[in-house]
């Protein structure tokens, strides 16, 4: 029952007096009302903004926070009010719901903030009034789509492959995201090149070349250098066939792959060649064979794998299919009408071009699209009048669906832009987060250096330690407990690497599949060491990156000056360290996020000179050892 009618209940009960004369039995005793009848005003303080309302108002919805006894948890005895540490602006809307029974969604607020407030106050969003429900739903859907998009972009093709993926999966991945490995990229560009070559060859084939000696007629180049063109064609088709077969092999679902648009385009691109090979040199069939060669031009559509713009265009056309269809239909109707009229108008004229209605179609189309070739022209006055009407209406009919298509294209294009921009900004954001995390680690190490872990009773405790907040003290104490538990200490990367080097433990080469040629800015006499540091510090592309191979951050090795005691303490525990140096798989904090193909990597780089060496994942594999040597948290 709606809570609003609670107000009318006393009235309905009073009206029950009218049944008394008719009652066959005595009326039951009414329930005893324990609550005091007089209404009281409640004070609700939301982050300093004081609201006052009747208790009755809040009691109308007993299954929410404010209507139930849950609000007693927030009661402040000293000030005799209910205190909520939430957004006062949002609370306004929540309170209005109690007052009017309708929940409204404020359009200028963030949808997530609003949802969170509703969840806090125990109000289901379903009761939003009709006036605001549509807006609320739209915003919510948009938000969810955006989040899904971001997640997709974030994880999508950038996550590193699980280590035990089959060669087939790796191959498919290489095809779908050519930026994952050099080989894939090379293949990508090679196929692109051959598509271009094939298309150009098709075009040049028909250009007239100088005739062979002895003849007069101009020959098209295709016939003059037929062998050369044939060889080029064969080469292209071989590459395309090979690519198609590889894709077919690697596809996770072959059926689905064969039905996809790109696969169909691939097939259409290479079939004419094979059909031409198979078919004999027959007079009748050669006509069809020539037609087939037309299909070779479809190879140009293979470029859509290489170009995002083409894909957007294709997608736009697909999404505007109904508008385009409508345009076509209305044009057809108009053409038929006007062609008929023109035919009958021009029927009488001698030697007229309008020999039949279908013949008049051509005139109508040319006129409606305002081309006006002039090969068919009306002669009679009636014909001219109708012809002018035809051209005027043509402009209108064509102009109508165009804005719809344009706005669709614009929306999709901007969506794509936004996705790319988001990817670029992700890198910056992640870099900043990394920086913050690094700060935390360094804080702990600094804390230890300052002797924070010793007893605080002595007066000689450094001032800097004393000035740390209670939170920091407790956090550092926690880390210290962890150290004691595992009997190992936290350290930073530099110390670790130095200790490792002093140990002279054997190195295994890194398993990164590709190394860019950047060297870290450490000059060292030991080439292996340098290589190792370079592996760690330079831009390794083992971690999956879509886009260019370069990393976002310029890395510099920041020589943190360690206090002597910590290093000595580290050296004291060399036996522990020895165990861990073997394994190269130290935990990395964050895997680098690559640049997207559209943006150049440099423009989104923030100069970050103060970042100490950031670890890269040299192998995103198993971690057989305890996560002890945590160089960066």
């Amino acid at each position, binding site marked *: *029952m709606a809570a609003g009618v609670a107000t*009318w209940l006393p009235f309905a*009960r009073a009206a029950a*007096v009218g049944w008394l004369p*008719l009652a066959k039995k005595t009326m039951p005793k*009414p329930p005893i009302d324990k609550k005091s009848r007089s209404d009281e005003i409640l004070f609700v303080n939301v982050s300093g903004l004081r609201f006052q309302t009747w208790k009755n108002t809040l009691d109308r919805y007993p299954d929410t926070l404010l209507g139930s006894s849950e609000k007693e948890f927030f009661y402040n005895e000293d000030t005799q009010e209910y205190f909520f540490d939430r957004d006062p602006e949002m609370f306004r809307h929540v309170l209005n719901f109690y007052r009017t029974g309708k929940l409204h969604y404020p359009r200028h607020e963030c949808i997530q903030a609003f949802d969170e407030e509703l969840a806090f106050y125990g109000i289901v969003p379903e009761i939003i009034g009709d006036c605001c429900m549509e807006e609320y739903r739209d915003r919510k859907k948009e938000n969810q789509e955006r989040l899904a998009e971001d997640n997709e972009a974030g994880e999508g093709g950038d996550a590193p492959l699980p280590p035990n993926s089959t060669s087939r999966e790796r191959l498919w991945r290489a095809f779908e995201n050519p930026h994952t490995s050099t080989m894939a990229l090379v293949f990508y560009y090679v196929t692109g090149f051959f598509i271009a070559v094939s298309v150009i060859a098709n075009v040049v084939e028909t250009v007239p070349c100088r005739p062979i000696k002895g003849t007069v007629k101009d020959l098209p180049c295709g016939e003059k250098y037929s062998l050369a063109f044939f060889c080029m064609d064969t080469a292209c088709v071989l590459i395309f066939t090979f690519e198609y077969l590889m894709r077919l092999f690697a596809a996770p679902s072959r059926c689905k792959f064969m039905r996809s648009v790109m696969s169909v385009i691939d097939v259409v691109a290479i079939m004419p060649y094979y059909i031409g090979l198979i078919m004999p040199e027959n007079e009748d069939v050669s006509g069809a064979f020539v037609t087939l060669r037309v299909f070779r031009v479809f190879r140009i559509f293979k470029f859509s794998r290489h170009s995002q713009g083409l894909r957007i265009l294709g997608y736009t056309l697909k999404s505007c299919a109904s508008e385009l*269809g409508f345009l076509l239909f209305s044009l057809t109707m108009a053409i038929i009408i006007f062609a008929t009229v023109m035919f009958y108008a021009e029927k009488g004229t001698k030697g007229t071009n309008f020999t039949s209605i279908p013949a008049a179609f051509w005139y109508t189309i040319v006129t409606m699209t305002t081309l006006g070739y002039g090969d068919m022209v009306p002669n009679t006055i009636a014909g001219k009048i109708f012809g002018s009407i035809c051209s005027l209406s043509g402009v209108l009919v064509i102009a109508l669906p165009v804005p719809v298509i344009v706005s669709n294209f614009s929306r999709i294009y901007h969506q794509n832009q936004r996705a790319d921009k988001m990817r670029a900004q992700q890198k910056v954001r992640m870099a900043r987060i990394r920086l913050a995390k690094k700060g935390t680690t360094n804080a702990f190490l600094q804390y230890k250096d300052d002797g924070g872990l010793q007893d605080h009773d002595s007066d000689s405790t450094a001032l800097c330690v004393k000035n740390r907040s209670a939170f920091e003290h407790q956090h550092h104490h926690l880390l210290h407990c962890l150290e004691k538990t595992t009997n190992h200490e936290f350290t930073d990367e530099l110390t670790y690497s130095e200790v490792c080097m002093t140990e002279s433990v054997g190195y295994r080469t890194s398993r990164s599949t590709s190394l860019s040629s950047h060297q870290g800015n450490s000059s060292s006499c030991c080439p292996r060491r340098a290589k190792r540091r370079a592996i760690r510090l330079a831009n390794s592309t083992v971690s999956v990156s879509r886009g260019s191979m370069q990393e976002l951050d310029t890395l510099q090795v920041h020589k943190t000056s360690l206090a002597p005691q910590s290093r000595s303490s580290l050296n004291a525990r060399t036996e522990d360290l020895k165990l861990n140096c073997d394994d190269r798989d130290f935990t990395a904090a964050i895997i680098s996020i690559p640049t997207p193909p559209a943006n150049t990597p440099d423009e989104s780089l923030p100069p970050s000179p103060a970042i100490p060496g950031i670890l890269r994942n040299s192998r995103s594999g198993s971690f057989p050892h305890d996560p002890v040597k945590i160089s960066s948290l």
Partner: protein
Amino acid sequence: MAGCTSRCRQGVLKFMQSLRRLVFGTLSKDKIDDELEMTMVCHRPEGLEQLEAQTNFTKRELQVLYRGFKNECPSGVVNEETFKHIYAQFFPHGDASTYAHYLFNAFDSTKNGSIKFEDFVMGLSLLLRGSTREKLEWTFHLYDINRDGYISREEMTEIVRAIYDMMGKYTYPALKGDVPKQHVDAFFQKMDKNKDGVVTLDEFVLACQEDETMMRSMQLFENVI
């Protein structure tokens, strides 16, 4: 094989749909509502002191009552439809519209199809704070549908039927036979002293005052507000 046929069917269906869209376009007609009649009737009650004088409620009680009333009906009046709707909320089992209609008429003192706050509060004052005689008079007016001063058998039957309608179909024991008619007969037996087929106000009051159980029940509704 079954999957193939269903897919084929879906494909054909989609094709037909796209063909249809092609022919008819995706335009939908614009619905224009020219008639947006906003009849905002606003009514303000008389002053608090006057109402306090006219009714038996205290100021505080009137304030509480008015706040609730104004919240539900910001325009200050209740029309019959709203009233029926509200009353029906309390009796979801059956059909309360007929009885609500009679109740509405009993409250609507000015007979203009809407209850103002004064009507509302006067009625309540009678029912909750009035003397026994006043309550009985109010009840008599409720039963007397045509306000001619007599309750006829037909009027009573209608009222009783309306009350039984509120019970709905599923009762225990089941409603068999013409229970309202029997009820009306019993009523007239008790009330109609001179057996002239109608009940006057005096007969009604007299008969009710003789009924001990009813007198006791009258006191039960004192503390509703």
